[in-house]
């Protein structure tokens, strides 16, 4: 069993986004989901620094440093896009106007608590940015992350050890091994990587997992069937 590549994970998330939904992809790894949106998905991407209908990265040499995303990377604007100030941008986020936010995380708890802004260690200055506004405000919070840390510890935990971003907000977790729904009855595996036994997944997961009756299989390219 080979865990999903970053690209396949991004593709798996992209295939799940609601048709014509308003979506924020945070910063870092989740922004690559944009590269895998199916033709005609109609998904409209928001970036917190004040732009709706984010388009692809411009060609080298075509960058406009007044046109960037929340990760401070150059972007383009799709036809029908708009610019606005941060106050209106965060009204969209905090006010529940986004359908989905896809965020990275250090840890997610079985109750859907999210820890994604600091590991609390060392003397580096912390940064919170807009992650917390998204976590509190978007209608659905999806987390996209590796299932375990580099040294093999579960990121899906009984209780977050790292400082929280928000309590009980995560609704779905996409990892390089599975898709998990956060339900009132705890965590439920909706899809599992082809070749991975549920017991092997449980071995890598601190929080208890149940399997949904109609659970699906994830193939190596991030497709789910």
């Amino acid at each position: 069993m080979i865990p999903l590549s970053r690209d396949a994970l991004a593709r798996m998330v992209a295939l799940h986004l609601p048709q014509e939904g308003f979506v924020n992809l945070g910063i870092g790894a989740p922004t690559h989901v944009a590269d895998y949106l199916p033709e005609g998905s109609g998904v409209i991407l928001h970036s917190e620094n004040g732009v709706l209908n984010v388009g692809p990265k411009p060609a080298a040499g075509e960058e406009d440093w007044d046109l960037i995303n929340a990760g401070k990377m150059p972007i383009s604007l799709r036809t029908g896009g708009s610019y606005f100030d941060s106050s209106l941008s965060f009204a969209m986020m905090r006010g529940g106007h986004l359908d989905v936010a896809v965020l990275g995380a250090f840890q997610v708890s079985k109750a859907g608590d999210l820890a994604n802004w600091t590991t609390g260690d060392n003397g580096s200055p912390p940064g919170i940015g807009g992650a917390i506004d998204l976590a509190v405000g978007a209608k659905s919070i999806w987390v996209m992350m590796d299932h375990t840390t580099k040294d093999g510890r579960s990121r899906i935990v009984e209780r977050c050890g790292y400082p929280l971003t928000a309590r009980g907000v995560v609704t779905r977790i996409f990892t390089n091994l599975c898709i998990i729904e956060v339900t009132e009855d705890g965590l439920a595996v909706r899809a599992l990587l082809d070749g991975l036994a549920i017991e092997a997944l449980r071995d890598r997961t601190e929080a208890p997992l149940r399997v949904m009756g109609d659970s699906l299989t994830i193939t190596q390219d991030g497709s789910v069937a």
Partner: protein
Amino acid sequence: MRNVVVEDAAAAVEGIKDGDTVMMGGFGGAGLPLGVVKAVLDRRVRDLTLISNNAGSTEDDLSLWFEARIVRKIVCSYPRSAKQFAEQYRAGTVELELVPQGTLVERIRAGGAGLGGFLSPVGVGTVFADGKEKIVVDGREFILELPLHADFAFVKGHLADTLGNVTYNKTARNHCAVMATAGRTVAVEVDRVVNVGDLDPEAIVTPCIFVDRVFARSSR
């Protein structure tokens, strides 16, 4: 691609029901979605809570709603020169919550922006403070004002593209831009629907994320 254009005012008010809370844009006639006024009347709903800066005048405007007695309560800053409303107000058949205009706008904005309320200096030491929580910050007294939400927000725009991006015309922008952020369903009556790409991205006032339905005002 997303397309929120609906055929007419009737389609724009689809789903409105007895007891709903409805925001209506406009300052006087500017920004009032008149097609919506009539379409709501046609739906024969009752017991609406109306959030609007004015209560109509004696003309072809929100006064029709009071004449038809479909409003149970109005949240409003300036219900003056409103003959039909005044009659029902005197008869005690409609409830009025009078709110200073800036506070009204800000409460609507708070609703749209997901805030739990705000501290206002407006109304301290007056009847507008009655029954409200007072909070002192740095020795200055403020009133805690709470957000307003609505089942429907209906506003008048100038142009809209088919995605739902909206511009307004001159002072008709008024309360419309804020109300468009605060309705569970937001419908915009416009002078003209244009193609995606026809609006300057820098000049769009209400981005499409807030807008559920758009229709062109009938020229009749």
